[in-house]
């Protein structure tokens, strides 16, 4: 045996890169994401515009009365008024220019500027969806962790059924059952609308009734607005809770197998700390990805739920615009929904950077 005693002198390679907490890489990361998001927004307007061109149906026919439609002069006047007589590329550029100035055109259905409609309806839906996603994250992640930690034991089995039920029950059915039980039968929660009947909305600042009421110090309005949020957001959250629970469980189980979790346990840390600090943080990367997608599904799920709970939001507006072939309305809705999606994706990307320093630093 030729025992090589360790050589003297310094050993071990040096640090690869000096630590730069924050600094340039983060700024570049942010800038890249923002530019991509802006380009995507412009692209969305183009797609929305082209799609509305492809839709069969004549806006004049949909919006003029029976008598006017038989009068070529009236039709021509209608088309000239809304610029429908110009070449399509010109129509698009005009539209894009207007949108950039916050002008989405006049709604042919409400006879108000689309921007004004959106300012009223969008916050209602976002408020609802935000409430639902926060609720889903709290409940879904907590239950998912419980299921993973108790893998294959009874809490896991019970929660598996719960999550499967959550993702398989159709939203309209959940909505009807919840409405019947919690409002009609037991009267535990207010049924429809954003406020108690007869109550005036708080002065407009953000369009979120809860925030506006808090800003104005109208506490009774705040409590009424929050109370009205509970039932529809609960219904919306049923599906996302189930989905987030399943993904959290899978993600936590995967992380639990890592060496660094064993290392954390070898340090004698309480299991609670091991799970919350060492396991949940890396698991959140997958969870927020799913939550971002789930938020999108909440927006589309809102169309139905808003109708059932008479929630004056984007879903109802989109539905009315589509039925009346209100092109400015449809395009406004499309662009706003797409922008929300892009914003959510941007947020998810930024959260990756917050959770995982390796993304920030490379």
């Amino acid at each position: 045996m030729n025992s090589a005693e360790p050589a003297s002198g310094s050993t071990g390679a040096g640090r690869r890169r000096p630590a730069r907490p924050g600094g340039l890489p983060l700024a570049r990361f942010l800038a890249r994401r923002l530019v991509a998001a802006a380009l995507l927004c412009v692209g969305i307007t183009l797609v929305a515009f082209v799609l509305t061109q492809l839709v069969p149906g004549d806006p004049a026919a949909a919006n003029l009365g029976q008598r006017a439609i038989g009068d070529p002069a009236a039709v021509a006047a209608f088309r000239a008024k809304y610029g429908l007589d110009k070449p399509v590329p010109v129509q698009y550029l005009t539209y894009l220019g207007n949108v950039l100035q916050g002008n989405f055109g006049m709604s042919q259905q409400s006879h108000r500027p689309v921007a004004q409609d959106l300012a009223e309806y969008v916050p209602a839906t976002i408020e609802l969806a935000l409430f639902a996603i926060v609720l889903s994250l709290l409940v879904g992640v907590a239950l998912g962790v419980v299921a993973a930690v108790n893998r294959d034991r009874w809490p896991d089995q019970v929660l598996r059924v719960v999550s499967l039920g959550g993702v398989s029950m159709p939203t309209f059915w959940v909505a009807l059952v919840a409405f019947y039980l919690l409002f009609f039968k037991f009267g535990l929660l207010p049924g429809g609308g954003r406020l108690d009947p007869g109550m005036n909305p708080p002065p407009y600042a953000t369009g979120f009734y809860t925030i506006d009421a808090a800003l104005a110090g109208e506490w009774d309005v705040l409590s009424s607005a929050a109370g009205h949020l509970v039932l529809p957001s609960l219904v919306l959250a049923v599906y996302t809770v189930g989905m987030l629970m399943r993904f959290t469980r899978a993600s936590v189980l995967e992380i639990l197998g890592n060496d660094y979790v064993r290392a954390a346990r070898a340090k004698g840390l309480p299991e609670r700390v091991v799970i919350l600090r060492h396991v949940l943080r890396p698991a959140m990367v997958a969870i927020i990805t799913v939550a971002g997608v789930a938020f999108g599904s909440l927006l589309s799920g809102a169309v139905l739920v808003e109708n059932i709970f008479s929630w004056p939001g984007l879903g109802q507006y989109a539905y009315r615009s589509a039925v009346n072939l209100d092109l400015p309305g449809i395009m406004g809705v499309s662009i706003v929904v797409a922008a929300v999606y892009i914003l959510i994706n941007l947020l998810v990307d930024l959260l990756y950077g917050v959770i995982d320093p390796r993304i920030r630093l490379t």
Partner: protein
Amino acid sequence: MGALLEVEDLTVWLATRRGPRMAVDGLSFQVGSGEIFGIAGESGSGKTMTAMALLGLLPHAARTSGKAVFEGRDLLSMSARQLRAVRGRRIAMVSQDPSTSLHPMLSIETQLTEHMRHHLGLGRSEARGRAVELLATVRIPDPEQALGAHAAQFSGGMRQRIAIAVALACEPRLLLADEPTTALDVTVQAGILRLLHRLRAERELAVVVITHDLGVLSAVADRICVMYGGRTAEVGPRENVLTRPRHPYTRGLLDALPHPEGGAAALRPIPGSPPSLGEVPEGCPFHPRCGYAVPDCRTERPAPVLVEPGHASACPPDPLGGIA
């Protein structure tokens, strides 16, 4: 040198699809305070499971029997809560690959201070001050700045130094180092081994080095235990085991090591492969691969017996006895 850790007849069963299988079979050894004790063996010999059993970190549904008395208390009969108070505080672990055992998303400061704050009740700034000292002890340049960095910003050798600093944070008496140098380059290995050697001297720290590489143990270990099939093949002082091995398996491991003066031709592999979990043969577990096996080896399960003071071998025919 009083025994800090006394393992007696440690047996570990792991749960498999086909029922419990024995991974460690009646292992006994002692580690003195301030001693570097090497456990050598191929993969599957039960060496890692031995360390996990001592820490109470065996996989779910694993069972143990026997005793592992550490500082007068039996680790194997402790409650989860009692074990947590020992883990990281009195017994610490360094594992094989620092690129996976350090948390990729937590700062070095968090990983170095969280257990100090938990076990020793230190405040944030106090723990931070000790973390800086620890990083200096393991020779990390610019410790202050390193605290704010993350594992990915360091090289493999530096990561293992940090992992050792993490293990040392609460001034444990015993360090379990499971393949501490396997994932590292040879030159970096030497530095880590020197570090372990120095720490043992400075802190009267006992170290159990678990490895498949007798070369590593030849550099640092005071005593060596060679494991095969979950059992002790041979145990004794480093010099005795490495220069006068009495068990054919130890001989085989030594012959399989590269020598600087011999080329590749000088390497003599042990024929066959180690038994997998639950398929340890009857009799001496090594007999199917042993060139010296006699009929008794197939039926008699040998226990280690002293062949000279402090040096025991589990090979009753003792074919190497005359060679030394």
